[in-house]
């Protein structure tokens, strides 16, 4: 297995090897003649349209027609070896392509008619349509001047709002900074719930620290310290997708701080370290050189491209491992239960009809809750559902399930690992009333100091009323 010597080379190879690996190049060769034909067609259309077209736009379209033949040579050089192999897929697609081409041609003609009569359409449209006819993989130069005149220019504020990505060279990093100690506070409040106080990872959530010297062993532990090549990946990911269920809620300074803390957890910086836009690229991660560009084409693919044995290939065959010994396949119990439930539906319906009296009572109970409020509460619950489940089959996750939470003993789900403050409340016989729940949701850490729930709280009374109404619709199961 060869390994490329350095990063820049890898990128260069990435850019060039893709074509050789995919069928695109060979198909392109097969279609080269069509490109030229389509370009000629485009030119003809353009010339026909010139009578009504402004000069500037005409020039633009001519450039496109010129670009195609130039590209033809470049493509031809690289494809001699692969043309034969790619003939089959190219042929297989041909009928579909031909049909599509006909349709587009018809459309283009219709548009041409409109143009000559009305004189309002842009000639650029012809280029686009002719271009679609060619159904080709262009090189960059060929795309010049192709336009359907659709969409609008993005405003700077809009690009700034969405363009949040960061690269290893620091491109995209906003101004800001954060130190390890600040990072620890941010981390404990927002991350430790799943990733553990020291990045050890609770349950099956990702481990963020350690794992050194495990990459060659069974069950490697891949952390920013042991595996990730670039620090920018940590910053970018925390910023775009974390905390889980509250994405993009951290400030830039908080992201710097928590990134610094993750470095600290991995013994990569001291506790007085501060990460900032200026110091960012000075940090490199230990496994930066542990990656190399896909090299299947140089080893595996030739090795796996030999005509295989068809007869008398082995003398004997033994079973060496069986999945039933490991026995980790999920059973079909849920599906069976669903089926059984569905089968008894008719019986249940009869019983329900007979028990109209009792049903009326429960209907009244439900009617007391404002449906609009419940619906609003369902929306608010999105803030909670990363950790809490409700409804049929709800299970404990990061937080306990919330079916029947109103009226339930605080800390009352058996088997769930509560914080100390919840255990104390449970021991004191305290119960979740709407009032108590409202206070907790308004200020989790104020109402229950030491709670594990890393949630800042709901700011508005309306939201609290809505979510309380929503939760009241889920009875204990």
């Amino acid at each position, binding site marked *: 297995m060869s390994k490329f010597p350095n990063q820049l080379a890898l990128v260069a190879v990435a850019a060039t090897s893709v074509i050789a690996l995919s069928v695109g190049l060979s198909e392109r060769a097969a279609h080269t003649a069509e490109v030229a034909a389509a370009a000629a067609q485009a030119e003809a259309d353009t010339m026909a349209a010139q009578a009504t077209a402004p000069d500037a736009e005409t020039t633009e379209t001519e450039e496109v027609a010129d670009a195609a033949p130039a590209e033809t040579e470049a493509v031809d050089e690289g494809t001699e070896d692969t043309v034969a192999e790619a003939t089959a897929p190219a042929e297989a697609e041909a009928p579909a392509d031909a049909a599509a081409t006909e349709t587009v041609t018809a459309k283009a003609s219709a548009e041409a008619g409109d143009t000559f009569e009305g004189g309002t359409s842009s000639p650029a449209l012809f280029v*686009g349509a002719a271009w679609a006819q060619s159904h080709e993989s262009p090189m960059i130069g060929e795309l010049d001047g192709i*336009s359907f005149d659709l969409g609008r220019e993005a405003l700077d504020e809009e690009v700034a709002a969405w363009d949040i990505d960061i690269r290893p060279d620091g491109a995209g990093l906003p101004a800001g900074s954060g130190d390890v100690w600040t990072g620890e506070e941010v981390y404990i409040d927002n991350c430790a719930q799943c990733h553990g106080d020291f990045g050890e990872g609770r349950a099956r959530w990702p481990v963020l620290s350690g794992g050194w010297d495990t*990459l060659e062993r*069974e069950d490697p532990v891949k952390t920013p310290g042991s595996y990730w090549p670039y620090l920018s*990946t940590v910053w970018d990911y925390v910023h775009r997708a974390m905390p889980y269920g509250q994405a993009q809620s951290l400030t830039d300074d908080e992201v710097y701080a928590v990134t610094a803390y993750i470095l600290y957890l991995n013994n990569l910086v001291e506790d007085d370290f501060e990460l900032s836009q200026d110091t960012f690229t000075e940090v490199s991660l230990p496994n930066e050189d*542990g990656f*190399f560009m*896909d090299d299947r084409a140089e080893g595996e693919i030739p090795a796996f491209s030999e005509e295989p*044995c068809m007869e008398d290939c082995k003398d004997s065959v033994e079973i060496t491992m069986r999945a039933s010994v490991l026995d980790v396949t999920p059973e079909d119990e849920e599906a069976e239960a669903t089926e059984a439930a569905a089968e008894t539906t008719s019986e249940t319906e009869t019983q329900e009809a007979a028990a109209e009296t009792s049903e009326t009572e429960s209907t009244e109970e439900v009617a007391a809750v404002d449906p609009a409020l419940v619906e609003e509460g369902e929306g608010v619950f999105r803030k909670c559902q990363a950790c809490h489940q409700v409804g049929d089959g709800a299970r404990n996750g990061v937080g306990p399930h919330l079916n029947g939470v109103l009226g339930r003993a605080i800390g009352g789900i058996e088997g769930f690992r509560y914080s100390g403050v919840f255990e104390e409340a449970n021991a004191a016989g305290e119960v979740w009333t709407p009032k108590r729940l409202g206070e907790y949701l308004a200020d989790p850490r104020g109402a229950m100091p030491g709670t594990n729930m890393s949630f800042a709280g709901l700011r508005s009374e309306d939201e609290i009323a809505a979510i309380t109404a929503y939760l009241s619709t889920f009875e204990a199961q």
Partner: protein
Amino acid sequence: MDMKFKGKKPSRRSFLTGAAAAGAGSVAATVAKGQTAPDPAITELQDWQVYLGDGVDAAPYGMPSKHERHVVRRTVDWLTADNISSINFTPLHELDGIITPNGVCFERHHSGAAEIDPAEHRLMINGLVDRELVFTMDDLMRFPRENHVYFLECAANTGMEWAGAQLNGCQFTHGMIHNVMYTGIPLKLLLAEAGIKTNAKWVLPEGADAAAMTRSIPMEKALDDCLVAFKMNGEALRAEQGYPVRLVVPGWEGNMWVKWLRRIEVGDKPWHHREETSKYTDLLENGEARRFTWEMDAKSVITNPSPQAPLTHGPGYTVLTGVAWSGRGTIPRVDVTLDGGKSWHQARMSGPSMNKSMHRFYFEFDWDGKPLLLQSRAHDSTGYVQPTKHQLRDWRGENSIYHNNGIQTWYVNENGEAENVEIS
């Protein structure tokens, strides 16, 4: 979030009990050859022969027969920390042909399936372009469209099997794949609309969901066959497949097919984001990792018989079938063995053969009732032959997680029950 690829939780029932139960259920429906008493299915009036069925509009959007309720996506709880950043699997053993019905296409989300109002959805193209653009869905509908059938396979499909046979069922071992017809706009047309600068070498598609998924894609691929798709199998994308619009990256690993596509940035270098560094890189035995292993190698699996679909009819004429696909072209040939690879037979390919699409194969044989060791071996149009798991491990070790395309073995015992095994 993190997938765990070593089994931990033993199930309560043994596999064989489950398979036997499945077999028993079908026995009633199997009519013995030497039947002497008349078959009540024929001699007695059935309800549906007498009473009226549902009128039109009973189901404005139709669902499969209630007798097909078991044909569903299923997950494996112990794989992930929760069911939001998680995966479920296509029931391959219940399907035939090459098209996957939309409702059973496997799901993989990193922050749940976003529910997006198409009227509020925008697609932005920014970066190294002449004009940074914003499109509404209405704008996108006015570009020329194309229709193509492509498979989408998660790079982690069969990832649980690197260290050995683990899950009993092709749904679980091979179900992170689906194959649908996409209707979409060639990405190159959208890039052309913005005008790519000469130093543009990479694009970064980004999702609108709470994971804001990003992947670096080389410009050559973006200009080759990528689509910005809004329909699957003729209808709008399902929410869990990226409604209202997703990227289609034919033949390349599913993680790159960014769902809920909201932005495409054009740049001169790859971004090395989380899903192309800490994830979706292939760790080899020596501790070094391959990056940018985008193409999916040729692969196949026998879907019937398989652990979830045992042979219930006893000895006699038997239909073996399965699927095959390659990220590099078509599948002109699949070989099948019944004896663990001592001898091989060419299977019969059936249905359309399309570039980077799933292919269907059949091998019909007269089963003598003796145990079988079934394998299938795909050949793709480049001459690549699907390797054995041993061959693959020789190159990559057992820690790769991703891109496991090794030959699958099912052991079928004399009762017709099938099990996931590995053989010498």
